């Protein structure tokens, strides 16, 4: 599908040559550092797109705190795009952003109106988020309010970009870890439908690396299949994320998990991969470690083309597919108005994110990692799974110790592997 969106065009062109596009997570408080970071990423010898990650004051709309931190010289954890003037950001981007190096703004804001205004003003045509995925994990903003504001922002962004704006749904990464694939996929499709409804026609859907590569491969396959089923004829691509939970601490462990994600992304048909760095377990990555991670991931993805194809586990595909469709259809049946349906789905517990503490999430579902390292349902709360769906009930409660152990599963697995 042709797109007029710069970001999407770049991804689709790379797809033609079967090259996985790579993207860092990167944001700096000062304009000089942000520009230097973007330039270094641009010059990596791989297919890369740039990222401007916003700081966490901007994400909670506390622009005064961002301004104060800048004045007092505190290191911000991202770029305060609302605090800088349009001219300041345009100067920062001068000669950096182009068709050859598109840039996406990433944040995590349930109420993103001012951010969309700032993005649109400087001519950036790609961002990330979603009414659910930028709301539930991050705070206490009521879901209803986030849905309303995201709807307005999508319409605003579409208008400002003459219908070419691109939004990536973050739903495939909900809480970073311990959310079973079927729920991630269902939420991604639903947020995709939400974007389309509100005028954004160029989208990407995300999917995060889990604890088991076969399961991830099956998840990517189902996501692709459901995009064909629910979002045909639109400009949609799949973006995979290297593991977003507690990260390996050793260099070898960090490289191993990054390599695995690049392999699964390449073989599973994702078009873009958001990489993490070896510094991740310790502190915010510097420009240098980001560059190393991008180069490493590129080599890993290219090498994966040469290895044998990973076999799809049909049984796994079927069970994820069935569960995801049940969730999507049940939500769509709740109301002819998708905005309303999304809200109702959470209040009824049809969508229920395990371990998510947001007041609008039922928090009755639980997941666990089974003996083979696969993420499974321990209980499904009020989610509309029927008896014919293969939902494994562990029949045991997840204790605090067990939860801690599961949160550290990938760290232990990859750090330990690398010692042996």
């Amino acid at each position, binding site marked *: 599908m042709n797109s007029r969106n710069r970001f999407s065009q770049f991804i689709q062109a790379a797809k033609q040559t079967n090259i996985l596009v790579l993207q860092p997570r990167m944001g700096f408080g000062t304009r000089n550092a942000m520009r230097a970071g973007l330039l270094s990423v641009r010059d990596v010898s791989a297919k890369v797109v740039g990222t401007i990650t916003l700081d*966490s*004051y901007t994400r909670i709309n506390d622009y005064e705190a961002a301004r104060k*931190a800048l004045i007092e010289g*505190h*290191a911000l*954890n991202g770029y305060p795009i609302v605090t800088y003037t349009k001219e300041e950001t345009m100067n920062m981007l001068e000669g950096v952003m182009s068709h050859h190096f598109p840039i996406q703004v990433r944040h995590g804001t349930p109420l993103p109106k001012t951010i969309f205004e700032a993005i649109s003003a400087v001519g950036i045509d790609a961002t990330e988020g979603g009414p659910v995925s930028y709301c539930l994990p991050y705070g206490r903003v009521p879901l209803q309010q986030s849905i309303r504001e995201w709807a307005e922002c999508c319409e605003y962004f579409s208008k400002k970009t003459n219908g070419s704006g691109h939004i990536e749904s973050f739903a495939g990464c909900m809480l970073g870890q311990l959310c079973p694939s079927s729920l991630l996929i269902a939420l991604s499709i639903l947020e995709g439908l939400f974007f389309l409804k509100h005028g954004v026609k160029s989208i990407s859907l995300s999917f995060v690396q889990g604890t088991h590569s076969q399961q991830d491969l099956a998840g990517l396959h189902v996501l692709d299949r459901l995009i064909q089923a629910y979002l045909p004829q639109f400009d949609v691509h799949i973006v995979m994320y290297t593991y977003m939970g507690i990260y390996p601490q050793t260099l070898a462990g960090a490289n191993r998990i990054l390599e695995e994600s690049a392999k699964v992304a390449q073989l599973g048909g994702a078009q873009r991969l958001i990489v993490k760095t070896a*510094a991740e377990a*310790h*502190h*915010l990555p510097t420009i240098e470690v980001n560059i190393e991670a991008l180069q490493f991931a590129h080599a890993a993805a290219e090498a994966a083309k040469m290895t044998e194809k990973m076999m799809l586990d049909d049984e796994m595909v079927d069970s994820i597919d069935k569960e995801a469709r049940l969730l999507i259809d049940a939500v769509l049946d709740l109301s002819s108005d998708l905005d309303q349906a999304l809200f109702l789905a959470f209040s009824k517990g049809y969508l229920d994110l395990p371990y998510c503490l947001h007041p609008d999430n039922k928090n009755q579902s639980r997941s666990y990692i089974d003996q083979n390292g696969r993420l499974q349902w321990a209980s499904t709360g009020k989610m509309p799974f029927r008896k014919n769906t293969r939902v494994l009930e562990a029949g045991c409660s997840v204790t605090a110790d067990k939860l801690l152990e599961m949160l550290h599963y990938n760290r232990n697995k990859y750090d330990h592997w690398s010692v042996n």
Partner: protein
Amino acid sequence: MVISTINGHGHIEAVEAARAIKKTPHLSSTRMVIGGKLGTRGEDNKRYSQKLIEAGFEAVFMDDQPIGDFTKYLENLSKDFSLLWNRMA
């Protein structure tokens, strides 16, 4: 009260939070601890400990510290409480 922080701004915001908690009448004597990624400086985040202790936190846990340090703190805390309880009883 346990405050956990992940985004690297903890060393700034937790000081303000501690101040607000100390000012709240029925919370002013609440024992507070904090842990997580306190800044954006990795191992060098240790430099923020003193500032946070001065702000009123009884203990500061770095994110790379074993969980045992925290559970040990809790165990000692419960011993304190049972001592207190026995004295009252």
